[in-house]
């Protein structure tokens, strides 16, 4: 309970590069997701087997949700946003495995994910609308608002990072305090609440990333 939530615990170091627990957990999650996807789609058939059917349902549901948010063809954004969502769900729920800690509860992982979202928003925006048209977004509706628009870019990336980190980390703290105060059965409802928080935060992160990308590329409706 007296562990500093802002510092990461270092497991070992490769040369001058320290490797923390969150990074190792991330590697394990990446390997597990890659393995499951590879096994499921190794022999993709028209008559889908059980695992292939599950993967197809996940992809199609994500595709439908993102299509409703960006209001255009979601396939350019689906690899990024779908991977983000699946990774975040697994990472937030990794606390249910005994001994594992969610990597999103340390500041590095949400910071890296928010940086990816920040860069990909500009990438998709520039590719969809071209340089001048995309940059005109910042002087709209009035050139006086240019500093505010630039500031909004930074603060929304920062809040994307802090929201995920704060929710997951604070839930870990609450759980530690409850375990410290009272024993055996009382933490179970809090753990169930943690599963809900993890899924909702993964959903919110992905939806906000989709909203940012949708605003950058501009909907077909407007």
């Amino acid at each position, binding site marked *: 309970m007296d562990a*500093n*939530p*802002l*510092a990461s615990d270092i497991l070992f170091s490769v040369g001058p590069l320290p490797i923390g627990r969150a990074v190792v957990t991330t590697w394990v999650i990446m390997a597990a997701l890659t393995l499951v996807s590879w096994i499921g789609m190794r022999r993709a058939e028209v008559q889908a087997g059980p695992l292939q059917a599950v993967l197809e349902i996940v992809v199609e549901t994500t595709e439908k949700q993102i299509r*409703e*948010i960006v209001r255009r063809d979601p396939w350019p954004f689906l690899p990024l946003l779908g991977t983000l969502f699946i990774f975040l769900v697994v990472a937030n729920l990794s606390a249910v495995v005994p001994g594992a800690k969610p990597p999103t509860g340390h500041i590095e992982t949400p910071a890296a994910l928010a940086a990816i979202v920040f860069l990909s928003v500009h990438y998709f925006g520039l590719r969809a609308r071209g340089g001048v048209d995309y940059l005109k977004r910042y002087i709209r509706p009035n050139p006086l608002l240019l500093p505010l628009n630039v500031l909004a870019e930074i603060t929304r990336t920062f*809040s994307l990072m*802090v*929201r995920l980190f*704060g*929710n997951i980390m*604070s839930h870990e703290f609450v759980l530690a305090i409850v375990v410290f105060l009272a024993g055996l059965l009382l933490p179970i409802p809090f753990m169930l609440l943690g599963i809900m928080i993890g899924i*909702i935060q993964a*959903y*919110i992160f992905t*939806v*906000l990333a989709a*909203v940012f990308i949708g605003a950058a590329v501009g909907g077909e409706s407007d």
Partner: protein
Amino acid sequence: MTVEMLSIVGAAVAVSFGAIGPALGEGRAIAAAMDAIARQPESAGTLSRTLFVGLAMIETMAIYCLVIALLLLYANPFAG
């Protein structure tokens, strides 16, 4: 009072008072969404998606207060 004691008091004040506004705001937002779903149950999907995104936005204010409290407690530049 030393800097450490002031930091602890500051962290407690930041979290407790910083939670009041977002709590009231989230209550209003959920009440309005319930009202809208009761009137138009067919638009529950769109409403709940927008509700979740809006709640995340409101909740960010409380999370900012939590981060300030954690900085005061664990990464205070003025305490030894």
